[in-house]
């Protein structure tokens, strides 16, 4: 196990320069997520159209490199996609983190698949899985209109 598998360049880049880190205009859905263990916090804002397509998405928050990179990549990936498609992607993503399965999602470009796969090292670090999934769960919460804060248990 090499620490560089966890902290791949893509992650370090997104961690330091997160994309879509702001409160996007005209959002109509939002939710907060909190990981008490690390203190990671995210707030996800979504502009969802009537067909449940993600027209715009952004996030605010602070936390470890993994959680910030994951949030940043998540916003890039789901922007412009139907909610159902995003949901499928999340399934694949969770599977990758749990089972270590390779990721190759049809609806994603090669580059997008690579970005998602940059988080695969997390599998070797079970305590950090929650950091990697927090933004995704918060996204789901926001779309499904659950107003409770997403909480990952210790």
């Amino acid at each position, binding site marked *: 196990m090499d620490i560089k598998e966890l902290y791949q360049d893509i992650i370090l880049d997104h961690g330091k320069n997160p994309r879509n880190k702001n409160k996007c205009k005209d959002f109509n859905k939002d939710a907060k997520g909190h990981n008490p263990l690390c203190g990671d916090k995210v707030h996800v804002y979504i502009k969802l159209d009537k067909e449940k397509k993600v027209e715009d998405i952004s996030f605010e928050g602070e936390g470890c490199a993994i959680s910030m990179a994951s949030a940043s990549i998540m916003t890039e990936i789901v922007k412009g996609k139907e909610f159902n498609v995003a949901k499928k992607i999340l399934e694949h993503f969770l599977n990758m983190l749990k089972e270590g399965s390779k990721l190759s999602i049809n609806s994603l470009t090669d580059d997008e698949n690579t970005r998602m796969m940059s988080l695969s090292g997390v599998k070797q670090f079970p305590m*950090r899985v929650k950091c990697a999934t927090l933004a995704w769960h918060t996204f789901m919460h926001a779309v499904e209109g659950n107003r409770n804060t997403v*909480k990952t248990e210790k």
Partner: protein
Amino acid sequence: MEIKSIKSQFPIFKNKINGKPLIYLDNANSSQKPKSVIERISKFYSKEFSNIGRSVHSLAVTATNRFEDTRDLVKKYINAKSREEIIFTKNATEAINLVASSYGENFIKKGDEILITELEHHANYVPWHFLRQKKGAVIKFAECNEKGEVDIDEIKKLISNKTKIIAITHLSNVTGAIMPIKKIVDMASKKKIPVLVDGCQGAPHLKLNMQELGCDFYAISCHKMYGPTGVGILYAKKKWVDILPPYQGGGGMIEEVKKDNITYPQSPTKYEAGTLQTAEVVGFSESIKFIEDIGIKKIMEHEKEILEYGLDEIKKNNSVRVIGDPKNRGSIISFTIKGIHPHDIATILDEDGVAIRAGHHCCQILHEKMGIAASARASLGIYNSKDDIDALSSAIKKCNKVFNS
């Protein structure tokens, strides 16, 4: 069943007591521990120890996983619906105190009624007494009959629209009576009254199935289940853990702490304050495996056989009076001997390596009811055999001899 091979898994039986082999018949008090449990604890401290849940280093991750694996094991063993329903406590006593506090202080008010029975262990009375004092609630005692059991009609009779909880033992630690919990729960749930079961004696000796039993709370002491001291379990139905407030406050059970307010996570985290009994919980996983390896059905059959043999043997002695004669009895024989105080019995038996308990067994109400201050109690575990009963019988005869010489 091959009792010899089971007994050989318990290191304590290699020791002599007063030069005699140990005949351990004090299982209702606490059971002995198999080697696998003792070694699991040692291994945990020697190779895996760390505080759990809080750190991200490797030791902490492993320890946390071992701890939470045990929760899963327990959930499966007692057939609970979800992990949130399994709360680790210090002992069964704390489990009942938790309910009396978190449920009681929020749902029981002045004049409300708490229904318990005359069979209850102090652990299932004193916490309610505290509540009675604080809240002005009323405690009603369902009567115990001369067979040493509480008839379900006695409970029914006392239910009123002020009854806010029924708290009742699964298996009496004095008379051995097994209570018809499912029937009581069915009756209570029609009136929307939650039922707490003191499962201290039930858990080691009966098949546990929370979803079938249907009770709201079930309290377990792991040290009576061939497990380590220092750990108990509260099973609490999801619907309760979702709404009841925390019990003790401290690290681990919080979510967000501000100077003017504090929020809490979900169960079980909400109810597990401070550093937990890590080694104990991990060690307990081996107790469950030990029980499952033999199989609870086999354990029940074996203990029933020994119990019946024991009752027969002991009753042959005319000076002995066995306490209670419940229809459905498990693992317990309490008795008195004419003219000999139970403490003297215990001392004389001890000389022959026979360990029993003498006293009121934390059931003063029941002893008063039966008109005695104390009794002697032999209580069974999986390792007991007919030989143990024979040793008990002849030690009892020795009591007669000492006192009548």
